[in-house]
């Protein structure tokens, strides 16, 4: 038995289980996809809008919707699954096997990240097919989306370890996610933020990722800062997740 075979078995199994529990994916996958489809079919939303500096509604909101999906998956779906496994003694049971602790964690990361990547890809492709165009710097857009996913998955894992009840962990995850949505401009577009709010939210993973994706969409030359912020959050979350992990 190697860590790889154990991880592969977990990946197969967790994929199966996630597909049988589609309720978990409604917020993180179905809702953002529905939002982008609705936007993409409205012609006016695809046209340049002087209120948004000459960019379309779809272009301005696309990063926000991607961030909505990655934050829900990382901050609420992850703690709900992992916390539930701990509460039901599933982790304790696994501990008696030769499979390393990291195997299940890695598998959950892989499975949820795969869902996040698939959803993010559709959130980019669907508007492109509808004629709203692709982000100008697709590579940077993807990198920001992936980093935000990793940071949120790490933070979700920490939440699952630190908060005893899985319901509370995923509830707190929801609150954190809502703050991320605000930082990403869900209620008020980031282009309309006053300068101080931009500076403040740029330090959150939600704000930094959205800014990096916005820059990529709008063809603004990429700046290093949001990526540094995201990398720091990801590293911090990963270190904390490893330190705080508990079997029971």
């Amino acid at each position: 038995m190697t860590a790889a075979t154990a991880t592969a078995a977990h990946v197969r199994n967790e994929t199966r289980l996630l597909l049988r529990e589609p309720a978990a994916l409604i917020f993180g996958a179905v809702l953002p996809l529905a939002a982008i489809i609705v936007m993409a079919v409205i012609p006016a939303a695809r046209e340049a809008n002087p209120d948004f500096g000459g960019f379309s509604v779809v272009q301005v909101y696309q990063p926000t919707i991607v961030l909505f999906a990655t934050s829900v998956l990382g901050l609420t779906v992850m703690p709900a699954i992992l916390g539930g496994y701990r509460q039901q003694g599933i982790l304790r049971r696994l501990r008696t096997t030769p499979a390393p602790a990291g195997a299940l964690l890695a598998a959950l990361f892989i499975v949820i990240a795969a869902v996040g990547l698939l959803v993010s890809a559709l959130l980019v492709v669907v508007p492109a097919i509808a004629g709203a165009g692709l982000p100008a710097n697709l590579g940077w857009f993807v990198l920001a989306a992936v980093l935000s996913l990793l940071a949120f998955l790490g933070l979700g894992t920490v939440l699952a370890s630190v908060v005893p009840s899985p319901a509370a962990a995923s509830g707190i995850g929801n609150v954190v996610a809502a703050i991320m949505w605000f930082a990403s401009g869900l209620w008020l577009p980031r282009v309309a933020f006053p300068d101080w709010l931009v500076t403040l939210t740029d330090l959150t993973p939600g704000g930094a990722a959205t800014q990096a994706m916005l820059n990529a969409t709008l063809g603004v030359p990429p700046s290093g800062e949001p990526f540094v912020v995201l990398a720091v959050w990801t590293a911090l979350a990963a270190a904390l997740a490893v330190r705080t992990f508990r079997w029971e």
Partner: protein
Amino acid sequence: MALIDVTGLRKSYGSREVLRGIDLQVDEGEIVGVLGPNGSGKTTAVECIGGLRTRDGGSVRVAGMDPADDPRALRETLGMQLQQCRLPNRIRVGEALEVYSAFYANPRPASELLERFGLSRHVKQPFGKLSGGQQQRLSIALALIGRPRVAFLDELTTGLDPAARREIWEYLKLLRDEGVTMLLVTHFMEEAAYLCDRVVILEGGRIVASGTPESIAAGAGQQETSFAVDPAVDLDALRLVAGVTSVSVERDRVLVRGDADSPQAVLGALAAAGITARQLRVTSPSLDDAYLTLTREGASR
């Protein structure tokens, strides 16, 4: 050297001492029962020996390994079935076996375990839809899937109906014949008497008795010799018979309690007086009696 070697095992939760120095040696192929009332430290002992809890003192070796180091090889050697451990509700029986078999180097075929534990017809059933007994059977099957040399089974038949319980006992006997060493935590004296070569009785974090089920039963209980009341019997004379501790009349029977040799002595005394005991019955102490006596003593200390 013993396959499981425990000396002076101690564990406290805060200021509460749960284990106050446990010594236990189990040889390869032995089945040892761990008995004791709730809160006596049975589960904690097994979890410390299995490396799921950190001990406060003493030494523990399982197949030469210290569980405190949590060596990977220990998990290949030791299969554990724990209380209050569930599987995800939506995982199917066959899938659970498939996932767990991926963790071990040389797993038992799932089909063998399915058949042994009467789960063949439930391969596609989700864990959450199984009965309590079926869930328990699956849990034991998972503990044995890696062909462990040592298996710890905590309350393995709790919640099972008598027929299912017997089925599992038969399987465990087969495993013993294959040389699997087992530590069984159980509430059922009958189970311990049926399966175990040796039992230890825990009370208040200490081992208060250990030995074969028969020797423990004989050591703590008393033989009871009883027969139908007969006016010719002199009760006072019976009280003087060697080994007899008490003589009483209950309902319409004379009841004589005494040591292991007392029934023979009582019958001898009756025969000498020319009396034939009618409706004679001799009852040996059971492990149940011994258990209750020992744990009551412990509780009153």
